[in-house]
C-alpha cells in the first residue's frame, strides 16, 4: 500500500518534470492506448509514420551513429546491462527500426501514449529525454545499433 502511494507520487513527479517536446495534448489520458493504429502499436508514435527502407548497413553511417551515441545517449544507456535506461545491445532484435527512431525523436509522446513506452517509464522511472537529434541522425544511430547487434 505504502509502495503504491510512493509509486503514484513518483509517476506524478515524472510527468511534472518531463516537459513537452513535441505533441503534448493535455487532454490526453496517458493511460489510454486505445485509438492507436496497428502501425503505431508496432512501430511507435512520432514523426516516423511509414516503414523506412534502411538497406545495407553503411559503415560511414555506423561511425556517425557511434559518435552521436557517445555524446548523447551513453550517459543513460549501456549496450549490456541496465543503467538509467534499458540496455540497447539487443534492442534491434525486439524492436523495429521505426520504433527505435520514434523513441529517439518523440520520447515524451512514446512514454505517455504508447503502451510499451508507458511500461518502460514505470520500470525505469526517468523519462527518456529528446536529445536534439535529427531524423537522419536517428537513422544513423539505428545503423550503429544494428551493426552492434550483428557483430557483438
Amino acid at each position, binding site marked *: 500500500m505504502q509502495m503504491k502511494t510512493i509509486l503514484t507520487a513518483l509517476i506524478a513527479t515524472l510527468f511534472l518534470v518531463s516537459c513537452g517536446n513535441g505533441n503534448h495534448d493535455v487532454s490526453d489520458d496517458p493511460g489510454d492506448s486505445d485509438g492507436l493504429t496497428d502501425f503505431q502499436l508496432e512501430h511507435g508514435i512520432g514523426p516516423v509514420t511509414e516503414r523506412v527502407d534502411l538497406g545495407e548497413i553503411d559503415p560511414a553511417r555506423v561511425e556517425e551513429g557511434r559518435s552521436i551515441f*557517445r555524446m548523447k545517449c551513453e*550517459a543513460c544507456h549501456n549496450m549490456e546491462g541496465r543503467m538509467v535506461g534499458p540496455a540497447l545491445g539487443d534492442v534491434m532484435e525486439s524492436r523495429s527500426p521505426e520504433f527505435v527512431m520514434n523513441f529517439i525523436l518523440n520520447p515524451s509522446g512514446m512514454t505517455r501514449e504508447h503502451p510499451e513506452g508507458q511500461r518502460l517509464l514505470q520500470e525505469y522511472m526517468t523519462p527518456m529525454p529528446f536529445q536534439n537529434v535529427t531524423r537522419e541522425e536517428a537513422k544513423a544511430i539505428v545503423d550503429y545499433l544494428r551493426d552492434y547487434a550483428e557483430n557483438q
Partner: protein
Amino acid sequence: MKTEKSRILRGMFFGAGFVALAAFLFTGCPSQDRMMDTRDAAQKVYVAPGDHDEYYAFLSGGYSGQLSVWGLPSGRFLKVVPVFSQDPETGYGYSEETKPLFQTSYGFIPWDDSHHPHISQTDGDSDGRWIFINANNTPRIARIDLDTFETKEIIELPNTGGNHASSFVTSNTEYVIGATRFSIPYETDLDVAIDTYADNFDGALSFLSVDPDNGRMDLKFQIVVPPYHYDLGRAGKGPSADWVFFTTYNTELAHTMLEVNASRNDKDYIAAVNWRRAAELVEEGHGRTMSAEYYHNYYEGNQGYAVSNRKDEVTVLYPEDIDENFMYFLPTPKSPHGVDIDPTGEYIVGGGKLATVIPVHSFSRMLEAIDNEAFDGDSRGIPILDYDATIIGEVEDPGLGPLHTEFDGRGYAYTSVYISSEIVKWSLDTFEVVDRIDAYYSIGHLMITAGDNVNPEPRYMLGLTKTAKDRYLPTGPKQNHPAQLYDISGDRMELLLDFPTIGEPHYAQAIAADQIKDQVKQIYELEENDHPNAILGVADNRVERDGNNVHVYMASVRSHFRPDNIEGIRVGDTVYFHLTNVEQEWDVVHGIAIKGAENAEILVAPGQTKTLKWEPQRTGIYPFYCTAFCSALHQEMQGYVRVSAADADVPLTWRTGTN
C-alpha cells in the same frame, strides 16, 4: 545676463522652499486611486495560466546590480539576469568562467549599481538583439544577449566618476554612450586637493562602438568636457540621429554640499554632441592618445571562459584643441535630469528637476542657432547657445520635480514628476498638460512600451516609484520598490496594477514578446560546446592531477554524476569541477554543491559547462550533490570525495557505478 549675486540668492531661496515642500509632500501621501473599474483592470492584466504576456519588460536592479525580467501586463516575474553582482543562486561571478567578467582596473569588483537598460536599435526601434546596462559606481557597461539572457560582456570606462548617463544606444546601435556623473581629474590616479576642482577636474563622455555582428563593444573615443555633472543621455532619432544629448547639473562646480551649492544656477545645460562628426574627427587624427587603465571582459566563441583584457590607452577629443565645433551647450532650467527625444527626433525634452516648467528645445531651431552663431559665450571652447533661440515650449504647471519623459507616438508626452509624485501627460502640439495621475509614492523614471522608439506602442506605461510604504503587506522597515502599470491606450491614464520589484529599478525597457520569444535558446547544443574543459561524451569523464591542481572532468545527466566517487584528493589541493550537463532537453538543469565550498553552487544549463573551484581544508569524506530538482531520482544524484592528509599516498582514482 543676471548678476552672479542675484543668481545665488534666487538659488538659495528656491533651494530652501524646495526642501520644505518636499518634506511636506513626502509625508502626505496621495490618497485617492484613480483606477478603472476593478473588474476591467483585472481583465486587462489577466493572462491565463499557460498563456504568455504581450511584453517582456527589463527593469534595472539599481543597487542589486542586476537586471530583472517581467511579463506585461500580468506583472509576472520571469527571471533575474545577473550582471554586475555575484549571484550565488546561479554561480554567476563565482564560477571560473564568469569571474573574469568582474575584472576592473580596481581589481575584482563583485557588486555595482545598475541603472539604465537599453535594448539595441535598428532605425530607431528596439530590435531585440542585445540589451545594454550601465554600472554607476565603478563605471562600466554590460551587454546581455537576448537569446540566452546571459551577460556576455563588461567593459570599464576609464577616467570616469559615476557612469550614470548610460547605456543608451544610437538609433542603429552604432554607439553606446557613457559619461561622468561625478567629475574627477581626467588623469588616472592623480592626487590633488579637492578644492582645486575648477582647475583639475573634468568630465568625460564615452563613445563605444558596437560590432553589428556580435555586439562586441570597443571604446572608440572620449571627449573631455567641463567638470559639470553629466546626468542622463539619449541619442537623437530621424533628423537628429547623428546627435546625442546629455543633461548637466552642478555647472556651479561645487564639490561639497551639492544639494545646496549645485542648485544655485537658474539654468544648467543640455550638451548636444554631433557624434558622427566627433567620430570623423577622431578618424582624421584630431584626438590625443592618452594613457588610461581599463578592462574589457567578454566571451570569445560560443561559451567557455570569459577573457579579461587590460587596456592602457584611449583616444581623447579636447574641444578646445579643435577649431571646428562639434558640440554645444543648450541652457536648460534647472539641474535637469532626463533628456528625452520625441519620436520625430525634433523635440528635446529636459526634465528640469528643480524647474517650474518642462523645457522643450527644438532640434531644427538648434541647427539654425548654430548656423546663425546665436551664441551666449562658451565654456572651455564649447559654444553656449542662446536659450531663446533653441527653446520652443515650456510646459506650465507640470507638478514639482519633473524627471523623465517618454512618448506614445500619438502626439503626447508623459513625464514622471518626483516631488508631487505623479505622471503628467502633455501635448507636443500645445505644450499643455492634458491629464495627470498619482504615483505611489515618489516616482523616478517611467517607461512606455517602446516609448523611446521612433514607433512607440501606446499600450502600457510603467511607473517606477521609490517608496512602497503602505502599498503592500509590510515587510519590515525597508520595503521593496514598487512598479505601477497604467493603461495609456485611451484618453486618460488608468492605473491597472501595482507590484513590488527587485532592487531599485531606475529605468526599464519593454519589447513585444513576439519580437524575441522565438529567438530564445532552449538548450546549448552539445555539438557547439567549445568550452576547453567540456567533456562531450560521458566516456571522457576523468580526474587529472597537475601539481596541487586537480581537474575533475565531470558529466551530469538524470540522475547521476560521472564520476561520483573520487579518492586521492589531498589537503592543500585546489580542485576544479568542470561540470558538463550533457542533457539536451529544455530547462533540465543540474547544479553542483560540495560541503564546505567557500563560494557558491553552480547551475549548469543543458549542454553547458561550468567550473566550480574548491579548496578543501580538512581531511574527511565530502558529499556533493545536484542542487536542482531534476528528476524523480534527484535525491540519489550525489557523490563523495575523499580528502586525505597533505602527505598521504592515497592514489588518485575515480569511478561510477561499480559499488
